[in-house]
């Protein structure tokens, strides 16, 4: 188990240039917005989109790439159950994302004069979000048929989930969007980012926790099918041959 986690971290650290860039780019965006004149709601929407892009797209594209060049097939053939592999990989990716995105979040908190409690809540929301986002990235890679398609599907997922979190529109009470927002895994992230600047109490933690538990269960159950769609694997593995 720890072998998958360990190699993901080791590979990330081996490519130091990419690791540092992945931290610097969101930091630069967050710093520019947080120290500029943007209103809190659009700014929070932008933070959510940036964080979801890094977690969903950042999980989907490398997984698709590794699937197409046969790494997923090799690892599954080599003895790691498919569901376990993609979940551990998403978990390791989430911790890497968290390390890379935390400086951006702290800059937002610093610029907004946020309370320590709000920072802790926002960090917890970010941790949950990159975990869920990574698993959504796994699904985006699995349902697409090429690297380019994965990019498009993941980008669409980013926008849809950001919208469902209320990032682009304040939902009227009782409306369909309000219901969707209540169930959104990223509402807590959006509201936690607002909390850093305007001090609203974040909602949506329960929904995020439910997603954080149920989504890996789904990925586990679908593990063989997911790996099969990423690259052909035989028995012990997959039925897609």
């Amino acid at each position, binding site marked *: 188990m720890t*072998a998958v986690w360990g*190699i993901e971290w*080791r*590979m990330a650290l*081996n*490519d130091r240039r990419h690791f540092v860039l992945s931290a610097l780019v969101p930091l630069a965006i967050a710093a520019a917005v947080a120290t500029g004149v943007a209103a809190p709601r659009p700014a929070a929407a932008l933070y959510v989109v940036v964080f979801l892009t890094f977690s969903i797209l950042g999980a989907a594209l490398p997984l698709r790439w590794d699937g197409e*060049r*046969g*790494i997923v*097939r*090799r*690892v599954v*053939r*080599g*003895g*790691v159950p498919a569901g376990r592999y993609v979940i551990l990989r998403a978990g390791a990716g989430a911790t890497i994302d968290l390390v890379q995105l935390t400086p951006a979040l702290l800059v937002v908190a610093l610029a907004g004069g946020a309370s320590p409690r709000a920072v802790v809540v926002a960090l917890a929301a970010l941790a949950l979000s990159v975990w869920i986002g990574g698993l959504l990235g796994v699904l985006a890679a699995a349902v697409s048929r090429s690297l380019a398609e994965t990019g498009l599907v993941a980008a669409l997922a980013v926008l849809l989930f950001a919208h469902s979190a209320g990032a682009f529109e304040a939902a009227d009470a009782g409306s369909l969007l309000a219901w969707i927002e209540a169930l959104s895994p990223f509402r807590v992230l959006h509201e936690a980012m607002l909390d850093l600047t305007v001090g609203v109490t974040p909602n949506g933690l329960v929904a995020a926790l439910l997603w954080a538990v149920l989504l890996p269960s789904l990925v586990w159950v679908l593990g063989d099918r997911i790996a099969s769609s990423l690259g*052909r*694997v*035989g*028995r*012990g*593995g997959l039925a897609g*041959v």
Partner: protein
Amino acid sequence: MVVAGTSDPKEPGRAQGVVRARGVGYRYGDGPAVLSEVDLDVGVGEIVALVGPCGAGKSTLMRLLASELAPSSGLLELPARRSSAGRLMLGYAPPDDPHLETLSGRDNALFFARAAGLRGTEASGAVDELMGLLGLAGDAQRPVADYDSGARRRLLLVEALAHRPALTLLDEPFLGLRQPEREALIHILRVRSAQRGTVVVASSKLPLLPELADRILFMHEGRVVRGGRVAELLSSVGPATRIEIQLERRPQHLEARFRPGITVISHGDPLVLESTRGQAAVGEACSALIAAGAVIRSVTVRETDLAEVFRRVTGAELAS
């Protein structure tokens, strides 16, 4: 249909890597059959070599045995995927396979050894030993991205062998290996065989196979056309000497020039004769040709070897 084996100790043969195929066929998509009616039995501790030219179906059969593909027809029985102790029972090295490029060769091998069920020092000990034997010790800490194709091949062998699988499948294992590493690999596989490990190799390196394999199976056009021990295969076509003669000038009615025991196999260029009287027939055939007015440019004599047996069985050349 694939039947997974069991690690049940009441079925020790199945537990330790016996392969059984009956009427196995395979086709890629709607394409023509690349394997047809393959029957195969590989016993515990046996080393079997699949031999055939490019396109004979060796690699497809290996992929079926590795469960990378499922047969289109027939029955294929394979060992259990894991032993009762949780160890992966299969070790498979295809001719080419991806690695985790930014990690070192040793880290790659350790990752796959642990995934296969080895723990801690057991994994590192097995990996270090094999990397040393196969000439990779000096490259162990380098990223795989810096490896040449030969080193990548050797790393695949390390990864296939480190966990001591019950069934080892090596597709063209000698490619990219220098002589000392070939000898080391043969030694490793013979030791594994003595420890009841089953090995199937697909190879076109015929000269190495008599030293390695207990049995050789000839494959041609998707079928296993003949198989047996090396001595059995050699004797199956009878003792014969093949004489290839290139002529400047060719006399008429060649058959009539030779005494019984020398047969014309091909009237082309070169003229191919076969004799059951050994090398003594070479001088006799040349004398007969010269007496008939032929001018001989060159003479090549071949004793029956596996390539010759293959040629006789299939009518095709085995590029080696």
